[in-house]
């Protein structure tokens, strides 16, 4: 019976790592279950860090599972013998504190560099007079129960001017250039979650925040739309708070701005004044 339990416990890391590998390699029935397609410039860093950590914890998972199963397999109970009388081993304690310690700190240092890029260093632009300034947001995202309102800076590239216009749940963005979006919430907490850009940021009412990223055109599948989800419980309509992301080339985006400028100029001005 010992061997039965030993095998049962060994199946845990084997099946566990097996499922992770099936998902990563797209083996049915777990195809399309790995990280969503990455379309951003910095997403690859996050994916690399994730994969690296998964390999490390996978090895530890199998290693500890093996030791556990082996001790169950080998040391089944018998009245004829006694267990080894040992209270521990200081050398072992030191080894298994220091090695994981280094690995963990290594993981931290490695990821901290990319964390700084992703969330701390907001992009700057160099102005005509040689000074630098924070890059201006191209879109203002305003979340409310239960939808996204995207305010576009319009042709002048500046938010809060009369040529701003607004679209519901539709985010059109140019590819291959660094973008900044401004994030606000009108009512409760929401979270701006773009799986394919590896962006997630909670929106806090009364607080102005920013997210920045670059959409890479080579990573885009032609004529595809990407989803925008809410990732912070906001009420009964939380699950239906879906927006869509339309990546566009530079010229397509200019056309889109012009189209909306002509069509909605009067309307948008009124809205902007109301605000």
């Amino acid at each position: 019976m010992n061997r039965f339990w030993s095998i049962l416990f060994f199946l845990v890391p084997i099946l566990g790592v097996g499922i992770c590998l099936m998902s990563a390699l797209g083996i049915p029935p777990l195809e399309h279950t790995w990280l969503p397609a990455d379309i951003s410039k910095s997403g690859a860093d996050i994916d690399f860090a994730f994969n690296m950590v998964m390999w490390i914890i996978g090895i530890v998972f199998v290693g500890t599972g093996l030791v556990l199963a082996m001790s169950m397999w080998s040391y089944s109970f018998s009245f004829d013998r006694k267990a080894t009388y040992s209270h521990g081993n200081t050398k072992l304690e030191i080894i298994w504190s220091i090695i994981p310690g280094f690995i963990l700190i290594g993981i931290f240092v490695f990821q901290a560099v990319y964390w700084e890029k992703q969330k701390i260093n907001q992009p700057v632009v160099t102005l005509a007079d040689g000074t630098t300034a924070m890059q201006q947001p191209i879109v203002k995202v305003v979340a409310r129960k239960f939808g996204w309102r995207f305010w576009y800076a319009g042709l002048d590239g500046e938010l809060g001017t009369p040529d701003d216009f607004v679209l519901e749940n539709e985010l059109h963005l140019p590819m291959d250039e660094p973008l900044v979006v401004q994030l606000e919430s009108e009512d409760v907490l929401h979270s701006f979650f773009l799986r394919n850009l590896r962006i997630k940021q909670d929106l806090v009412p009364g607080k102005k925040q920013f997210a920045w990223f670059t959409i890479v055109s080579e990573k885009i599948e032609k004529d595809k739309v990407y989803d925008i989800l809410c990732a912070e419980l906001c009420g009964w309509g939380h699950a239906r708070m879906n927006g869509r992301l339309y990546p566009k080339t530079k010229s397509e985006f200019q056309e889109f701005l012009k189209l909306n400028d002509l069509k909605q100029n009067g309307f948008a001005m009124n809205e902007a004044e109301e605000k």
Partner: protein
Amino acid sequence: MTESADHPKQSFIWKYVFSRDHKVIGTQFLFSTLIWFAVGGALAIALRIQLAWPWTSMPFFGKELFATEGGQISPDFYNMLFTMHASIMIFFVIIPILAGAFGNILIPLMIGADDMAFPTLNMLSYWVMWPAFVFMGLSFATPTFGPAFGWTANPPMAEGPALTYWLLGLICVGISSMMGSVNYLTTIIQMRAPGMTMFRMPMTIWGMFVTAILQAFALPVLTAALCMQLADNAFGTGFFRPESAASSGGGEPLMWQHLFWFYSHPAVYIMILPAMGMVSDILSCFARKPLFGYKPMIFSISGIAGLGFIVWGHHMFVSGMNPWLGTTFGLSTILIALPSAIKVFNWLGTLWNGNLRLTTPMLFAISFVSMFVIGGLSGIPIASPLIDIPLHDTYFIVAHIHYVLFAGTVMGVFAGIYFWFPKIFGRMMNETLGKIHFFLTFVFMNGTFFLMHVLGWMGVPRRYASFQSLKQQIEAGASQLELTASDGVNKVFVMAKDYEQIMWINEFITYCAIGMGVVQIFFVLNFFGCIFFGKRAGRNPWESNTLEWTTPSPPGHGNFDFQPVVHRGPYEYSHPDAEKDFLMQTDPPLEATSQAESGGEP
């Protein structure tokens, strides 16, 4: 023996209802929490049914509660289900079963005391739970808008009368925990038997001790935060409510999150350290081998507790908190994996070269180790602020917390129940039923929780009532998108295939969850059957070393029929000079074994 010698005869009510005996109070906690465990489990199955077969008729209560919708639950009701599932499981099951039930029953018995330091306070700590039960019930029954705000109750979304009841309930739970922790600390520090030095205490007691310290220091902060939110909600103050169209607050929603997690992250350790202690004792007993690295184990739980106070911000990496703070919290969080790893290695060291008796409590204890490895390892990616960005608020987090708290703590609790049942009720539980219960729970549990990791890295957000609306949008197809896209280009939604996968995985998880619920019948039968019909247990059925096994089963009022004197640490199994393979803490000292003594002179 303080009052037992001339203890007056008591009426039934004072003996079994308003009892001041720690064992009766512990048993009261045990029964209450097991009943709430069933309630919380039923809520979990209801929400799994919604996820697997969205917006179909909910069995059992759907037709009664939602008659006009044909038994379909509302999205708000779904939110209430997971809010109450979490609130009940955390505040009415795991915390009170570990501290209230096991803490009460085991602390005096394992340190050789005749009762708690403050028996009346102890009784009150149980009875204060009852207003909490009533308030939570009222909260769930609030007619128009129930507690649909998640167990974190983030303002400004959380509001209304349901929140008031929910907060009052939690304040009562906090008062109960505080009374308990003061009592446990005093008892452990003051009432140990002669010879029971701190470093001769079993790991169970160390777990309870460190937990009590955590509660004593973290609870005041939660209580203050709860009172502030109560004032916001009931009297219109503005601690956490921002200036907006909906309120004239001027408060800061992030402040609530800081205060809430300042308690609720240490609470995660409150919910696992006692289980770690119990598992250490059970592993050592059934491996017939001293616990590997007793002092490193104590230092690592102290390390977990100490670091536990400075990691709360890892719940808030993407909350809008200053990202520099995220860096700091990331470092402390990653470092907390170290003492956890040391514990796992020491448990494995305890099993290695042992003489393993695979009884039911032992199997549950080993599964605690095996599952805690998963829960611990899956904590590493989300401890890193960078990798947490895609994983935060997805099913990866749901998988992680359930591997720690269900596959970890609840398995440890089952181990504890099977192990100490003979001491509590004087009879053995049935081993065959126990092993069937273990096997089926273990299999269904992994079926339920493992694939949630996969959903998590796919980017499936948690707390969604259904993923069907997305799927329907996809099925409605390109025409709809063409219509709404303002530039009129036909586009394809890229995630269609993903959502098909989500649907079958959710269905699979639900079948496993239902299976896991159903097989608990083996436990219920075994538990209640053996209270009355189990084989009688002697004083020490498992041949264990610690003090509780020197008392009669069940122990009478005052616990010990002699004054226990402790001569050694709790883990002297398979001592080469001893005749048997165990040496109880009260056994007289062996000759020529002074080198084996781990503590000071008695």
